[in-house]
């Protein structure tokens, strides 16, 4: 029962935040709605039994990427300068096309839902309710099967660190 509540709450949070990211005129609000969408996806990871991934998502994305986005917005002139790029593009259509689009999309989603539900039901991919702790499993897999990816990701991080540091270094004139 709690799983169903968590599922509904986090999927609602994700969908509402993603939609309002589309609508908002203010870049800072867009960053905060990204934060809401990431929180929602972390909740969905929880319902899928990936508790370590939910905590990673919160720590890396919300503690790191969103903070970096906010810093970048502030460093590039804050709100005033960024308003220019956010007004709706004229070809986005007016109210009528918007309503038509929403109606079409919802029809599409309902049809696909019924279709996929039948297919997956046929292949017995019904709900599997075996939650077990993932941290030890992921740690063991990282050390045995995926050791190469583990080591190469440190080289990737080194490259990102050095590259971004060079780019972001103030100009020596």
């Amino acid at each position, binding site marked *: *029962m*709690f799983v169903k509540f968590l599922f509904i709450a986090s999927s609602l949070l994700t969908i509402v935040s993603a939609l309002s990211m589309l609508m908002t005129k*203010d870049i*800072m*609000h867009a960053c*905060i709605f990204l*934060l809401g969408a990431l929180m929602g996806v972390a909740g969905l990871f929880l319902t899928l039994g990936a*508790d*370590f991934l939910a*905590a*990673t998502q*919160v*720590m890396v994305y*919300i*503690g*790191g990427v*969103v*903070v970096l986005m*906010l*810093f970048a917005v*502030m460093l590039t002139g804050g*709100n005033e300068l960024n308003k220019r790029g956010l007004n709706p593009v004229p070809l986005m259509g007016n109210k009528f096309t918007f309503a038509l689009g929403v109606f079409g999309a919802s029809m599409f989603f309902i049809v696909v839902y019924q279709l996929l539900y039948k297919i997956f039901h046929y292949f017995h991919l019904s709900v599997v309710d075996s939650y077990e*702790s993932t*941290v030890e499993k992921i740690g063991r897999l990282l050390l045995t099967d995926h050791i190469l990816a583990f080591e190469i990701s440190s080289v990737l991080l080194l490259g990102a660190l050095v590259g971004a540091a060079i780019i972001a270094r103030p100009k020596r004139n």
Partner: protein
Amino acid sequence: MTSTLSSYIQSIPYIKENLYWLTEMLGPEVTAFVIFFIGAFIVANVMALVGGLGTYAERKISADIQQRIGPNRVGPLGILQFLADGVKMIMKENIVPRDADKFLYYLGPLLCMVGIFAACAVLPISSGFILADLNVGVFYLLAISSLVGLGILLGGYSSNSKWSMLGGMRGASQIISYEIPVTISILAIVVLSGGLSFGKIVQSQSGLPTEWYVFHNPFTFIAFIVYFIASLAEANRAPFDLPEAESELVSGYHTEFTGMRFAFFALAEYVEVFVLCTVASALFLGGYNVPFRLGGDSLLGQVLQTIVFFSKTCFLYYVVIWIRWTLPRLRVDQLMTLCWKYLTPIALFNLVGVSIWLVIFDGKSLLQLIKGLF
């Protein structure tokens, strides 16, 4: 309902009968919810009380250090001073800066409070009463407490004044840069204890100081010092409270917040200091373990464990307040140099040292090795 909280409540004799009555009446899921709600309600109130008493303790101890009396008007010995402050805060007028960003203005304190109170769910108060004994406990706590940095950044940004924005940015950059030494020194303990859940880490230590992780080996001792310094900086406390202290920053990111919003920022700060002291005492100083396991897991044992838990945490809290009123404040560049050029390399060195120690001595502590020699 195999979670530790309900097993703890079932251990109280007369509770067991009504529990069955409750489960028949409401069904297992809802009783779990009711029990967890009561537990969470207790923890939330205890944390609010701790935040309030923190302000009182701070003013009383600082008065003691400066040979003056400190608050003694409201209630016996001034204990209820924080209630008076709370009421004063509620009665303050709600002034929002001119064209401040309303949505972010109210979101800042909310993020701070949610981040800290959600982190209180995993604190190991006693062997039975860990509200949520997640097996990603320590990692979850680090993740959710990174919301505070965001709350401070939003608070500073949204109040439309250059100074609070600068204070907010400085506060956020200080918090996120000091999160690295905290994370890496906690990693050193996780390597030794072999598990992420608070219950397991505290259980692997025991009551006597010989078994604590602080004295386990020299690397964990340095890790404790690095952790304590970095957690002071992460809570914007003591010699690192730069964002709201410098003269030209006036009061940093919470200048423009009046009344209740300011109270939420201050409460979040005091509860964060308490949470960080709890993590320090749980990871390094043997958490709630009573020496010689007096009282075992019975109800009396639980109460003893809670007393040991609060005494260790309050001792660390006293040290934090004591440091605040003795050490001078650091400049911005000294602050950042300390973090990136001293604490982070030492923390990384500790992590390497602890893992080498674990492989060579199979995780035995220094004292066990010395005992093994004779």
